[in-house]
């Protein structure tokens, strides 16, 4: 009998203790979830993405809208199943109010559909850059403050065709949807500006031996558009140099990412002078950008980060900062399924480290894009030098929305470019 009574007392005491904090502080704690690929092939970009979130949270001192922010991390491995599992845990078990993420394209597509089933949570994209996440069938509570794969190539097609005068290009790309998107974003304006895609190679993800592809490359082209990322890009560049390749290269956005141009050894030498485009440029002389670079560098010790933030860190930083600013803007009003916050986010005009960002009617970012060239930096390392900053570009690349949708989803043969 005594045991039971003691247990009841303990139960009463703990419930009282748990109830107290809610009344003690201003608004209490608000749980925020962060999802990035901390496992598998994208582990390194994923870590950078997490750094972006943490930098934003540290900058705001882990408070926003009167709440104390509790940050819960979750990890995925670029597969939709794992991302959904992690999202479900964050949303249904940990009960986060807002989820920032995911990182990779196909995860984003799955996340968009999941968001439709969770109207009480607000989802802010990390850096996932598939087109259809917001272009077709968007979710009303999914916000993407970051441009997508096709937008990342804006400006490059015209630059290559008109400024460089390279009218014949062969392309090599990893055979998956994100690279199909990047190819689309490059080829559509390029072909409209008079360029010609002579031959296109699609290699399975994770191809290690490019020797035969390098041999098969046509020699009568002005340049080769290289759509490879991560280890694949380093392998290719290495083998390209070993084969004595001399045709100039054009890079997809992730081909000239931090993780590749800071890799040790000679492979990156092949990248010198490579033109590319992307949502950020390392050497942009802009007050906001410099402020973000300094914040990134100050938030983490030098051996736990890149010298300057990669695009994953920047994307996650901007998304988290939008969330924080939104919470502050509506003074923490999360009633009625975050109605006020969502209205604020939809109408937000963000002055970000990469220029002004607004959202279109599908909650997709409209932002400027940077055409870059890889150049040698002051300390002998490679950086992406800004060549041109485009006007703000939307998801339909300036075309009429109906006409753009009629072009069909991205794929190996889109655009035909005849």
């Amino acid at each position, binding site marked *: 009998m005594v045991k039971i009574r003691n247990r009841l007392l303990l139960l009463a005491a703990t419930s009282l203790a748990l109830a107290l904090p809610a009344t003690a502080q201003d608004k209490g704690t608000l749980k925020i979830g962060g999802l990035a690929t*901390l496992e598998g092939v994208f582990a390194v970009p994923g870590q950078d993405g997490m750094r972006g979130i943490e930098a934003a949270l540290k900058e705001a001192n882990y408070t926003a809208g009167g709440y104390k922010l509790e940050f819960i991390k979750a990890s995925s491995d*670029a*597969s*939709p*199943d794992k991302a959904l599992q992690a999202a479900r*845990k964050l949303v249904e*078990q940990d009960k986060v109010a807002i989820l920032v993420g995911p990182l990779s394209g*196909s995860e984003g597509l799955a996340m968009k*559909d999941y968001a439709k089933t969770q109207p009480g949570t607000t989802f802010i994209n990390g850096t996932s850059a598939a087109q259809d996440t917001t272009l077709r069938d968007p979710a009303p509570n999914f916000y993407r403050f970051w441009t997508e794969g096709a937008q990342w190539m804006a400006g490059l097609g015209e630059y290559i065709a008109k400024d460089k005068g390279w009218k014949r290009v062969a392309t090599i790309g990893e055979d998956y949807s994100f690279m199909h998107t990047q190819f689309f974003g490059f080829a559509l304006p390029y072909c409209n500006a008079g360029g010609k895609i002579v031959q296109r190679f699609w290699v399975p*993800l994770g191809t290690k031996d490019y020797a035969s592809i390098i041999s098969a490359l046509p020699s009568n082209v002005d340049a080769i558009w290289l759509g490879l990322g991560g280890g694949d890009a380093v392998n290719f560049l290495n083998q390209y140099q070993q084969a004595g390749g001399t045709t100039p290269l054009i890079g997809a956005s992730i081909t000239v990412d931090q993780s590749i141009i800071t890799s040790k050894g000679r492979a990156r030498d092949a990248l010198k002078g490579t033109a590319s485009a992307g949502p950020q440029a390392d050497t942009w002389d802009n007050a906001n950008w410099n402020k973000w670079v300094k914040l990134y560098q100050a938030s983490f010790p030098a051996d736990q980060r890149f010298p300057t933030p990669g695009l994953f860190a920047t994307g996650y930083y901007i998304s988290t900062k939008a969330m924080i600013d939104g919470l502050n803007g509506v003074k923490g009003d999360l009633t009625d399924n975050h109605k006020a916050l969502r209205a604020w986010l939809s109408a937000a005009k963000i002055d970000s480290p990469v220029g002004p960002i607004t959202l279109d009617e599908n909650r997709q970012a409209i932002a400027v894009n940077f055409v870059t060239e890889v150049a040698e930096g002051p300390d002998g390392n490679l950086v992406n030098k800004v060549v041109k900053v485009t006007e703000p570009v939307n998801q339909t690349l300036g075309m009429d929305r109906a006409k753009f949708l009629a072009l069909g989803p991205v794929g190996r043969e889109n655009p035909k470019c005849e």
Partner: protein
Amino acid sequence: MSVTLGEAVTGAARGEKRTAWLSWLNPAYLIAGLLLLVLPALVGDFVLFSIFAWSLCLGMVALSLMFLAGYGGMVSLAQLTIAGIAGYMVAIFGTNGTGTGLGWPWWTVLPAAIAVAVAFATLIGALAVRTAGIYTIMITMAIAAAFFYFARQNYPIFNGYNGFNLVLPPKLFGVDWRQPLPFYYLTLAFATLSYAAVLYVSRSTFGLALQGIRDNARRMEAIGFNVVAHRIAANAFAGLIAAVAGIFLVWFNGGISPGSVGFGPAIDILVIAIIGGIRHPIGPFIGALIYALLSTFAMDLVDPIIGRERFKLIIGIGFLVIVLFSPDGILGLWDRLRARMAVSRDCA
């Protein structure tokens, strides 16, 4: 009081039948069954759906592996592939997010998906029938890898790298079967059914012959059993279970992609079956529960110790410990514990 021999015999037979009946009412089954039925009242929706319903789905796939490995002596790494084929067929024959589904009604989609998957399972069985031991593992691994790479590269049928989203169960009888509660009971029903089916088959003539083939194929051949036919039929039966599990998995995830049938997940199914124990059909479900719990909560548990990213290390060490010290998995540990308690009871 004298009793005729005839009466004694019939009386004894009836008595035995009664005790045989009672043995099915094993108290463990009663307790477990009761707990599983009232589980929704004890745990929240997330745990119900993401842990228990998921364990039941994974457990069914692992059950198909256990059937082949435990009773048939064939360790097949292609069971997840068969489940994946069934899942892909549901996406392709039914409706999915890309709008390329054929849009058949559910009572055509499900049987068709199961039929295709079982056909594949039979084919795999036929290919693997002359292999044994490690070779079976390797050929099924190669088939699983071939399917993964094929599905990832093929856009016309399998939609390549992205796979399919928005593959959901039909709303029947006014119930949305994707909601945690109905989905849990649905998977519980089918998991129980497949568990009972495996138990029944294992004690049937076919099952006993299969176990005989496992132990000594040459002797069984000499007696007159068709070893090849038995093995292929076993693959078909296991394929049926895996196909049903695959349908539930695609509904659980709301979609399917090549990553669902990759090398890593296939090894995970093997790990689940081994950890649980392949000597009794309950083993895979125990293993699946442990896996689901670790996979979801390990990150939080190991975070303070060695960082949340190291949970794969924990799973690997756990698996290694089990294989080194208790090759029969958790069930083996349980058996040994019971034996030791029985010994101490006898000695006391």
